[in-house]
């Protein structure tokens, strides 16, 4: 019996760019079935082998076609396209609103209401990011699951930020554009949120680095936003204490909450991923009930 998998590996050079093992297994199964069918119909082994090889006249072209079909992502559906634009506009609008309202001479009567539109856009932004990642790598199912962990982390962190700060220090919430995350209940919640983010990422079979980013993403992104806003505060606003306040805010909003998130994530960073034992794709899916494909 020819080794069809090996034959395909030799002829498909370079191999298809995604899910190579799965494709090779499926194609080799097809060749093997074709070969056996020819033998059953009385063909001599050598003739059957040659006729089986006739199934593919140009391996390079086949490889390119498979790669192309697997790379070009199905746009899922038109709703996603529309959502993507809506999300981008909502995110941009909400961010601009935050920038405008965060002028130091403004006071906010109700910070929760002020943050609500922004919070509401976060899951959509995560979904959009997941979709873009999916476009780049159509077979990466982790992304579908990973965006949940990032969203949970984000929402948890921000809700703890807004709600608990309001309970602990209402006067601070009313005066500061970015609330301080120091109070202990807030930090304790952040530890739980970091743990939840890392755990969900682990369940999604994400590598350690991705788990770390998912768990600490609120602090990381806030740090990036603050860094981007810093030149504006210094050059455009000419705010004399910009650097000092940047350092204080960085400590309050990035370093301390980041450490709390990291602390919660730690137990899930040292463990292997939930599905880390090697399973060939076919075996992994062979456990489906036999009725799974029935209508």
């Amino acid at each position, binding site marked *: 019996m020819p080794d069809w998998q090996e034959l395909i590996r030799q002829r498909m050079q370079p191999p298809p760019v995604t899910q190579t093992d799965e494709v090779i*297994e499926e194609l080799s199964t*097809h060749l093997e079935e074709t070969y056996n069918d020819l033998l059953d119909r009385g063909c001599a082994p050598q003739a059957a082998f040659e006729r089986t090889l006739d199934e*593919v006249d140009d391996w390079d072209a086949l490889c390119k076609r498979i790669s192309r079909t697997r790379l070009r992502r199905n746009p899922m559906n038109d709703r996603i396209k529309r959502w993507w634009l809506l999300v981008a506009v909502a995110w941009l609008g909400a961010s601009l609103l935050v920038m405008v309202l965060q002028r130091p001479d403004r006071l906010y009567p109700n910070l929760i209401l002020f943050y609500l539109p922004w919070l509401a856009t976060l899951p959509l932004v995560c979904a959009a990011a997941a979709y873009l990642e999916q476009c780049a790598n159509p077979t990466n199912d982790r992304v579908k699951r990973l965006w949940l962990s990032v969203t949970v982390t984000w929402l948890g962190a921000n809700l703890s930020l807004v709600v608990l700060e309001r309970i602990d220090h209402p006067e601070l919430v009313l005066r500061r554009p970015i609330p301080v995350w120091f109070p202990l209940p807030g930090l304790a919640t952040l530890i739980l949120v970091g743990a939840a983010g890392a755990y969900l990422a682990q369940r999604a079979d994400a590598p350690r680095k991705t788990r770390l980013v998912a768990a600490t993403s609120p602090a990381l992104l806030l740090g990036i936003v603050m860094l981007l806003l810093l030149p504006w505060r210094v050059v455009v606003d000419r705010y004399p204490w910009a650097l000092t306040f940047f350092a204080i805010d960085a400590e309050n909003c990035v370093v301390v909450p980041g450490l709390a998130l990291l602390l919660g994530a730690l137990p899930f960073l040292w463990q292997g991923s939930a599905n880390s034992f090697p399973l060939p794709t076919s075996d992994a*899916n062979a456990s489906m009930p036999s009725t799974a*494909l029935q209508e």
Partner: protein
Amino acid sequence: MPNMTKRIRSKIARGSGELAILSILAEQPLYGFEIAKQIGERTGGALKFTLASLYPLLYDMEKHGWVEGRWQANHAGRDRRYYRLTPAGRRQLAPLRQEWRTFFQALDTLAGVSHA
């Protein structure tokens, strides 16, 4: 002109291939080899899928969400990737059938194909 002919043929082959696969999967889930075999047998060999023509089309249809492939062990314990029609594929089938019916009627009107 030869290029245009080739393009038209390619589109016809592709369209007919999609219709054949969707039609046969509408009856039951099948794996690749069985899809090719059944289409060949039921069309008396007029439509013949090779590995090179079948799988890129299947993957493309899977990408469009018309079919869904899943590995599953058969009764002998052998793993095969079975394809089934999705609801989107089922919705795609009716207009595709209508398109081809219209196409053949048009050809028939023009060239009397059905009596040829």
